[in-house]
C-alpha cells in the first residue's frame, strides 16, 4: 500500500491528498448512543498533575452523562506505548486513546484507530481550523483530534546573562554564528562555571527537522520517505563538535546526564547552561524547576527562513476496537469543546488547539502559560511537517545514540550521518 502521510500545521498551504480509502474502518452509520449504562476506558500518559485534572474532567463528564462510566488509566511515557501495543494486539484496547505524532501513523495506518467521520454526530470538530484538523489526518481520514499545539523555541536564562554581563540576543536577527559566539562568550565570562549552551540538536526529531529546513532540506518527503541529506546532518554535528571544543556547549557526558535527568533536572533547569532548546509548553516546568528568569526566543535564523513549525502536542483518538464509539466520541467532544472541561484541564496538555477554548483559558493563565501563548502567537511558522511514518516512532533514541557516538568521538559526523540515515530508512521500509 502506498502511504501518503501528510501533516499540515496551522496556516499551512493546502496540499492535495489522493483519495485513497483508509484501511481498517467500516463505513459507519450504525454508531449511536446506548440507553443502557455503558463503561468506556480512557488512557493517557503523563504525570500526577495530569491524572488529577483528567479525573476531575471525567467526573464532570459523568455528571452530564449519568449512564456513561469512564475508567481512566494512565502510565508514564515508555510504559504507555508498551501497554497500548499489547492491549491493541490482544484486541483489548482502551476506547479513548491519547495519541502522539510519533505513533499516529503507526496506529492509524494499520487500521487500529476509528475514522472519526463515523462519529461526527457526537464529536463536533467545527470549531477547529481546517489546517489544525489536518494534523490528525492520514489519507484524508480524521483519525485523531489535536488537543494542543507546541513549537520549538530557544530558551535563555536571563539571570545568567545578567550575572555574567552578556547582552541578551536579538532573536529577530540572530544566526547560528551569533549563537556560537554568544555561547562561547557566556562560558568565558563565567570562567567555566557554566557552559553557554547545551547541545543545539540531535536529540529529537524537531531539531533535525529545523536544521534540515534551514539548509533547504526536509527530514521526510511527502510520501513519508527519508529525504534528509547526510551532509546536512553531518553539518549539525560538526557545528556542535566545534562548540564542544571551544567550551561553548557542555561536554558529551554532561549532555547525557542532562538528558537522562529529564526537563526538571536537566542542565537548563539547574542553571548549568544559559541557553537551550525546548517546546514552548515546557517553559512551565522549566520555570518551576529553575526559579530563574527564563525567556522563550525565536530559533536562530528562523525569522528570516521561517523554518520552524507547529507541532500538535498530542491528540485524542478512538480505538477501532471500541464497542462504544458514540460514547467515546461524546467524551472527546466534552474534553475539547466544552468550557467546563477547559476550565479544569487548562493548558496542561498544551495550548488548546481549539481556538475557542484557547481564548477561554487565556484569561487566567499562569506565567509559564502566558509565555508559551505569547511565543506561539509571535513566532514565525513555516509550512507544517510531514507526519512521522510508521517505523519512525523510534527516531529520538536512534538519533541520540548517533549523536552520542559523534560527540564522544567514536564516529565521524559524515560516517554517522550516513549510517543513521540507512538505519532510519531500513526501519521505515521494514514497517511498510
Amino acid at each position, binding site marked *: 500500500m502506498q502511504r501518503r502521510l501528510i501533516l499540515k500545521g496551522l496556516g499551512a498551504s493546502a496540499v492535495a491528498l489522493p483519495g485513497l480509502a483508509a484501511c481498517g474502518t467500516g463505513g459507519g452509520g450504525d454508531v449511536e448512543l446506548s440507553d443502557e449504562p455503558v463503561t468506556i476506558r480512557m488512557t493517557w500518559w503523563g504525570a500526577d498533575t495530569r491524572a488529577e485534572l483528567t479525573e476531575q474532567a471525567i467526573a464532570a463528564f459523568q455528571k452530564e452523562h449519568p449512564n456513561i462510566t469512564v475508567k481512566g488509566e494512565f502510565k508514564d511515557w515508555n510504559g504507555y506505548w*508498551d501497554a497500548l501495543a499489547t492491549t491493541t*494486539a490482544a484486541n483489548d484496547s482502551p476506547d479513548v486513546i491519547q495519541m502522539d505524532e510519533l505513533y499516529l501513523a503507526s496506529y492509524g495506518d*494499520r487500521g*487500529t484507530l476509528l475514522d472519526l467521520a463515523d462519529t461526527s454526530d457526537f464529536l463536533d470538530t467545527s470549531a477547529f481550523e481546517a489546517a489544525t484538523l489536518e494534523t490528525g489526518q492520514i489519507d484524508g481520514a480524521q483519525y485523531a483530534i489535536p488537543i494542543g499545539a507546541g513549537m520549538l523555541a530557544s530558551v535563555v536564562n536571563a539571570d545568567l546573562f545578567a550575572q555574567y554581563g552578556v547582552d541578551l540576543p536579538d532573536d529577530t536577527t540572530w544566526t547560528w554564528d551569533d549563537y556560537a559566539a554568544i555561547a562561547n562568550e557566556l562560558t568565558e565570562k563565567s570562567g567555566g562555571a557554566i557552559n553557554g549552551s547545551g547541545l543545539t540538536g540531535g536529540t529529537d526529531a524537531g531539531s533535525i527537522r529545523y536544521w534540515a529546513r534551514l539548509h533547504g532540506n526536509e527530514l521526510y518527503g511527502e510520501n513519508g520517505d527519508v529525504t534528509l541529506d547526510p551532509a546536512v546532518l553531518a553539518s549539525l554535528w560538526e557545528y556542535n563538535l566545534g562548540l564542544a571544543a571551544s567550551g561553548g556547549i557542555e561536554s*558529551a557526558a554532561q549532555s547525557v*546526564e542532562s538528558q537522562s535527568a529529564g526537563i526538571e533536572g536537566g542542565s537548563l533547569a539547574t542553571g548549568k547552561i544559559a541557553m537551550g532548546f525546548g517546546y514552548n509548553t515546557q517553559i512551565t516546568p522549566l520555570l518551576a524547576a529553575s526559579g530563574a528568569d527564563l525567556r522563550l526566543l525565536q530559533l536562530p535564523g528562523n525569522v528570516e527562513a521561517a523554518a520552524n513549525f507547529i507541532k500538535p502536542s498530542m491528540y485524542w483518538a478512538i480505538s477501532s476496537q471500541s464497542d462504544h464509539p458514540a460514547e467515546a466520541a461524546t467524551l472527546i467532544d466534552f474534553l475539547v469543546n466544552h468550557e467546563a472541561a477547559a476550565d479544569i484541564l487548562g493548558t496542561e496538555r498544551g495550548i488548546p488547539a481549539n481556538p475557542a477554548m484557547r481564548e477561554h483559558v487565556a484569561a487566567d493563565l499562569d506565567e509559564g502559560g502566558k509565555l508559551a501563548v505569547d511565543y506561539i502567537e509571535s513566532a514565525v511558522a513555516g509550512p507544517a511537517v510531514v507526519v512521522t511514518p510508521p*517505523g519512525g516512532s523510534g527516531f529520538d*533514541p536512534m538519533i541520540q545514540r548517533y549523536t552520542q557516538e559523534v560527540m564522544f568521538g567514536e564516529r565521524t559526523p559524515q560516517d554517522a550521518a550516513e549510517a543513521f540515515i540507512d538505519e532510519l530508512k531500513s526501519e521505515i521500509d521494514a514497517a511498510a
Partner: protein
Amino acid sequence: MSATTELRNLGGRGSTAKRQNKVAFWFLLPWFLGLFAITLGPMVASLVLSFTDYNLLQPAEFNGLENFSRMLGDARLHQSLGVTFTYVLVSVPVQLGLALGLAIVLDRGVRGLAFYRSMFYLPSLLGASVAIAVLWRMVFGADGLFNDGLALFGVEGRGWISEPETALGTLITLNVWTFGSPMVIFLAGLRQIPRMYYEAASVDGASRWRQFVSVTLPLLTPIIFFNLVLQIIHAFQSFTQAFIVSGGTGGPADSTLFYTLYLYQRGFGNFDMGYASALAWLLLLIVGAFTAVNFWASKYWVFYND
C-alpha cells in the same frame, strides 16, 4: 528451568533417590502448574512468531528464516552480545569470588553473624529493583555521591554512567554488589563440611591456606557450581538495571545495550515483535549452551562427596 534441574541433581543422588524424587515432584507441582499455565503458552507463541513478520497491530506474516538470517548483519545485536558477554563474564566471577570470601570470613564465627548476614544479603533483595537502579544513577552521576567521595581525596571524578567507557562498569559493580544471595548459599555449604576434616588436617600440620585448598574448596564445588549456573543465567537476563540507568536506551552510545534491552527495544519500540521473538529464542539457545557447557565441564571439577 535449569536451576531446578540442578537442584534435583544436587539432591537426587543415592538409594533413596526414587522416594526423594516423588517428594520433589509434589514440591515442584505449583511451579509446573505455573509453567504450563503462564510460561509455556507464550513460549510456544514466541517460537511461532519468531518465524514471522509481526508488528503487533496487524496479523503476523510467515517469513521463514528471515529473522534469523537478519541477525547476522545486525550490528546493534552484535554490540548487545558484546556488552552482555562482558557483563556476564566479568560480573559473575567477581561476584562469586566476593561472596565466597565473605562467606568464609563470616563462617569463622564473627560476633553478630546474623546481623552481617542480613546486611550483606539485603542488596540481593534490592539489587534488581527500580529504586536501586535510580539510586545507582544518582550515586554514579557527575554530581553524585561517588564523586563527592573521590573529591575528599582530591580525585576529580567523572560522569561514570554518562561516559561510554565507564557506564557498563557501574552496572557490573551493581551486579557484584548483589553478592548476598550466593554468599548465603556458600555459608550454608560451608556449614555442611564436617569439622572432623579440618581437625584431621590440622593434626597433619596443614596450614589454613592448605586446609582451604584441600578441604574447603573441593567439598564446596557443588555449591560453587550451583551458584555459577544460577548467576550466569541471572546475569544474562538482566534488564531492569540497564533500563533504568540508561532510560531504556542502552546509552550512552549503546555502551549498556544489554541483550534483553535490545530485544525489548525491537519488540516494543519498533513494533518488530517477530524479530524480537527470534532474539528471545537466540537468548534461550545461548543461555542453554552456556548451561550445557557448564554441566559438561562440571564433571572435571565438581566433587560430590557421597
